[in-house]
Structure formats: structure tokens, C-alpha cells
């Protein structure tokens, strides 16, 4: 029987970028997993936590823990949301003095993986049978890079994609300027950071800019389409899920 894995879609993917979630599910199925979508799931609460609304986030964290604690493996197409689960959920529970919830959150966190981590470390492969004949540049999102330390896992996966041409992104490790509510509270600074990121993406000559986070891609993609460029943003899961048969 296939091993079971829970898809933690994240609220952003569920509501605005379902294709990234569908791709994650297809990819994991192809790798031999029975993918389940726990219906009560909504959000990790990161936006509330990072804006200072810890007490309000507690109910979101509780819902997340209750949605996923029955699963042995939980996979999300987001470095940022996995980082929140790992580094913030127990903190939020302790903020409302709920030690029991904190322990449960820690248990869920210990079984939660970002997509590239899961494929490379748990599935144990970098070859996922993908085909994507395009020029692609990879933006290492800050939280997957610095909080999860996924390092070169996404690149190792991309390098194995058939037909792909990976092009270098200048100052790749510099933040795109999204920062959740930062982009609303400091829109001008955020735009200035975005402008530099977009310039690097366009200079790379890529047709697609990919990343492991839909939030960063929403920001970069929103800017690129406002500039009427032809460069598209695409979640890492969507590239890895693409096959020759489908193209």
C-alpha cells in the first residue's frame, strides 16, 4: 500500500494559486504516495504572527494542529509556511500559555516538510521524471533559504528536469521585498526591492522565474505583469510536475 502523505496546501495556494497545490499532489502521487487533503486545514497563521497578532493567530495555529496531527508526513509547497510551523507555532501556543498545544504543535512540526526537502531527504531522489523545455531562473525565497536551510535541494531537483535550461539569477539571495504586510506598510521600500529583483530576473534571460513559495512569486509575478514583460512566474512544484506526456 502506498505511503500516506498530507498535503498542507497553504491558504494562498488554496485560494489563489490552486495549480501549485494540484502540481504538488500530482508530483507526490507520481512518486508513489497516497496524497490526502485534510479538509479542515486553512492557514499557518504566519501573516498574523509576523504582524504581531499572536493571540489572534492562536486559533489559526490550533486549527492547523488539529487538521494535521493524524498524519505521519505533511508536505507543503511553501518554505515560508513550513518555517512558520517549525519556528513559530509552539511559540504562539506558549504566548497564550497553552503548553499542551505547544507540544502538539511541535509534534506536527517535526513531521512537516517543505516540498524540496521532502523529495530529496524523505523520498531520497532528485530525479522526479519531469520535462520542462524552457529557460528557467530560480529565486531562493528567504525563508526556505535561511529558516529551513533547504540549500541547493531545489536546484538539484531542477537540474534533473529534462529539457530545462537553468540560467543564473544575479543577487539571487536578496529578498524580493514582499515580506507579507511589509509590502502594505512600507509599499515604496517594497517596490524598490521588487524593482531590483525584476531587473535581475529580466537580465537573466529566463522565460520563467520559479521559487518554492507562491507568496514571493505573487509579488514578483505581479510586478512583472504590470511591466508587461513576457517573463512568467511558476511554482517549483509546477515545473517538477510537468511531464513529456502532458506537454
Amino acid at each position, binding site marked *: 500500500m502506498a505511503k500516506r502523505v498530507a498535503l498542507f496546501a497553504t491558504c494562498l495556494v*488554496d485560494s489563489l494559486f490552486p495549480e501549485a497545490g494540484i502540481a504538488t499532489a500530482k508530483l507526490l502521487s507520481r512518486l508513489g504516495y497516497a496524497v490526502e487533503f485534510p479538509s479542515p486545514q486553512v492557514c499557518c497563521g504566519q501573516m498574523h504572527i509576523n504582524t504581531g497578532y499572536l493571540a489572534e493567530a492562536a486559533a489559526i495555529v490550533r486549527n492547523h494542529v488539529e487538521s494535521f496531527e493524524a498524519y505521519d508526513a505533511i508536505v507543503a509547497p511553501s518554505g515560508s509556511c513550513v518555517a512558520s510551523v517549525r519556528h513559530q507555532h509552539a511559540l504562539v501556543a506558549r504566548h497564550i500559555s497553552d503548553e499542551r498545544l505547544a507540544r502538539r504543535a511541535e509534534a506536527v512540526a517535526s513531521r512537516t516538510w517543505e516540498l524540496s526537502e521532502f523529495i530529496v531527504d524523505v523520498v531520497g531522489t532528485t530525479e522526479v521524471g519531469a520535462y520542462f523545455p524552457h529557460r528557467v531562473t530560480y529565486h531562493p525565497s528567504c525563508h526556505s533559504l535561511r529558516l529551513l536551510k533547504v540549500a541547493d535541494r531545489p536546484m538539484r531537483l531542477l537540474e534533473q528536469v529534462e529539457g530545462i535550461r537553468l540560467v543564473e539569477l544575479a543577487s539571487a539571495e536578496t529578498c524580493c521585498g514582499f515580506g507579507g504586510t511589509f509590502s502594505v506598510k512600507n509599499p515604496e521600500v517594497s517596490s524598490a526591492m*521588487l524593482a531590483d529583483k525584476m531587473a535581475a530576473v529580466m537580465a537573466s534571460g529566463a522565460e520563467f522565474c520559479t521559487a518554492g513559495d507562491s507568496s514571493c512569486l505573487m*509579488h514578483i509575478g505581479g510586478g512583472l505583469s504590470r511591466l508587461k514583460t513576457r517573463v512568467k512566474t511558476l511554482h517549483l512544484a509546477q515545473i517538477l510536475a510537468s511531464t513529456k506526456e502532458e506537454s
Partner: protein
Amino acid sequence: MGEGLLFGEGDFPTRARHALADGQLRANLGAATTTIRERRAAAVGEVADWEELRSAGARIKDGSLAALDEMLVDFEEKFSASGGVVHWARDAQEANAIIVDLLNRSGAAEVVKVKSMTTQEIGLNEALAEAGIVAWETDLAELIVQLSADRPSHFLVPAIHRNRDEIRHIFQDHIPGIGTGLGNDPAELTAAARSYLRDKFLAAEVAISGANFAVAETGTLGVVESEGNGRMCLTLPRMLISVVGVEKVVPRWEDVGTLFQLLPRSSTAERMNPYTSTWSGVTPSDGPSEVHVVLLDNGRTNALADPVGKEALRCIRCSACLNVCPVYERVGGHAYGSVYPGPIGAVITPYLAGVETVASLPFASTLCGACYEVCPVKIDIPSLLVDLRAKHVAEANRKPLRSSEKVVMSALAWVMADAKRWQLVNRLGPLLGKLTRYRWARLAPLIGRWTENREPPVPPAHTLRNWRNNHQGLGEGMRHE
């Protein structure tokens, strides 16, 4: 609470907006921070056990902070026993009053200064000017800032916002006797400053410094620097006054060895800084015959009492976090409104001055984490920023009127804590998506500012969970539905 030059008029977003409009500033900062970043990475890359060193640095500072009460008394005892005089200042005003009083008694009308963040923090130059005393900054970059009646915008490179042409103009306008022939070559500019400062060093009766560290077991103060101006100030005048934050004390002399492996590489990307001066009280017939230290609180004990915020007191003022910060790189130090800018400034300032005094600072970050990655004493700046944001929200919740942000965030939390509510709201998605295509909808407070430079995402016809409900192969939840 801390006071002095920890906060200015307005908030971060407003000051940042003005800074962004200055193309020259952005070019200067971009060039300078890129260079320093690359050099630092190379200098740190040479050290095989850098991560262990960082942990050791953090441990030393944490240990010092945990026993600060005893160590400060030890320091006072040792420093006094060798002829130094220890003064205690609760805040900027007390510190300035102590120094003005010492200077008035000495009869000095001029002092030379070693570059010092702490004296900037307390606004010492302004206080001295009020008392009719002239203070000469002798660090090259501080001199540039002082001559142009500017403010420092960086810990280490206070004139980082200036390029060499601007500096040439500042020197031509403000240093007597400099003609229009002055070039913009760094060596030539430095020579001009050197000859200007030489007379000040030789004439000064009193010098004022900060300190990079204080050692409890030996009663020693130390300053690290690159230009040798500090050594001149610390040795030539008759009297020396040092303003030192209480968090600078470490227990043992050997602890300095660890911090010295971390500081220069993080700060100037050097293996070792050119000049290190230490003094323990007075040494007869060698250096100043009268030595004072003003141990400054100015909000530090508030930070120390905060279980999360005390981590900020580990800071050794290296400025590595400023150089890697994508926000700092684009807006510069002045946008922070505090003498402590950048990521560490956005945490130190509110912990010292109180978060409500500088409430916009903790939000001046995308939480990208580049600062934490380079911090030589492993200060988890992003987590401290989130802690301060939570403190600000908790304060705002005490006010009778709820902010619009609070209303929106509470409503969202209610929706996001339950999948059924979430689904209901998501049905409105396609409708909201259509609305954002109209120009008038972009006037809405949140959507409007975001869509100025970014196309909003168009909500799909079906959410992921709708898709799931209509497809085989993606299983249902185990315990629900």
C-alpha cells in the same frame, strides 16, 4: 527609558519614502554595501570554525548579561583601584551633565573625540555645544558628518551616504584654507583631514571616547579603530572621559580574545583592526593623568529585564547586519530616525526607548533573515522584530479605539481558524478579483497601495479544495467530512 538621539520626527515609512527619492543616496549606498558585503564574506570564509566562534561570542555576552550587576561592581572596583573615576548615569541627560561638569571643572573649552556610538546616542556634541564647549570629531567619516552638520547613517561608516565628490565639496566648504584644487582621490581627501586634525590633537586638553569593551576582572577599557586618530586621542590629552553602555562589560580578559576574532571580520572585513588601545585606570607618566568612565544605562536595564529583548544587548556594534539588509541598502540610516539604524537599530532602539516611541521601526523589515545569518553574536533579529511587533499590537489593543488594521486582522483570524468560514469567504474571491480590475477599487487602502506597482493576482474560478472535491486521487481528510 532611553532618551537622547534615539528617535526623531515622523515615522519610518515617511522617512524611507523621502530617502528613496534620493537617487544619489541609493547609488552611494548600493555601491558601498555591496563592496563591504563581499569583503566580509571573504574574511569570514577564511575561518573554519566561524559558527563555533559565533556561538562562543553569544555565550560570552549572555553570561555577562546574566551577571551584569556583579560584574559592573567588579569593574568599578578594579578601575577605581588603579586611579580611574567611575560615574553612573541613568540616562542621556545625566551622562551629559556629568561630562559637562567635568569639563567645566577642568576649564577645557575644546575636546577631541574618538568615534563613539554611545556619545552619539546621548547627543553629547549638542549638549557640549549648549555648554559652550567645542567637540572635534577626529574619525574621518565622523568629521565629514560633523562638518556638513549631518547625522551619522551607519555604525562604522557614518558617512556611507556620501561619495567622494560630495566629501570633496564638504571639505572645500568647511575646512579653512582648502582651495578648489582639492581632488577626489581618497588619499588626498584623507591627507586634507589629517592636516586639519593634527592641530586639534596637539592642542586638546581633554578627549572623549566610547569603548568597545570593558573587562571586569582587570578594570580595563578598550577601543578598536582603523585610523590611529583614536590612539592620538587616548594618549595625548591630559584627561580622558569614556562613555560606556553597561552591556559592554565582559568578565574575563580572555573573553576579549573571542570577541576580537568576531568583530573586525564582521565589521571592516579585516582579520585584525589596525589599532587596539586598552587602558586600566591611570598609568603614571603614560597617557592621561585623569581618567573617567561614565557607565550608561539609558534604557539598557529595561531591555535586560525583557526575557526576549535582552538578546539585543549582545550587540557588539559591528554593523554587518546593516551591510546585508536589503531595506537598509535602499533607504540608508537616516530613515530609521535613530542613531542605531538598520536591522539591529530597529530592535535596539525600541527596546531602549520603548516600542510605542518608535512603533514603526519593528515593521521596517521583510524578516528575510539576512541579518541573523551574519550576526557575529547570533542575535535572532527577525524573532526580536516579531516580539516587538507583538508588543506594539498588545499596546494598541489597550487603547479604547480599535484601529482598522486590528478590525481586519481579527476578522481574518476568525475566518482563517475555520475551513467552512474560509470556504464561504473564498466564494467571494472571483468577485473581488473582478473588482480589483476597476481603477476605483484600487483606492481601497490595502489594495490600492499594493497594486500601484504590482498586478493583483486574479482569484481562480475554483479553489484547490473545490478541485479536490471534483477529482479522484486526492483523498479526503481522515477524520472530517
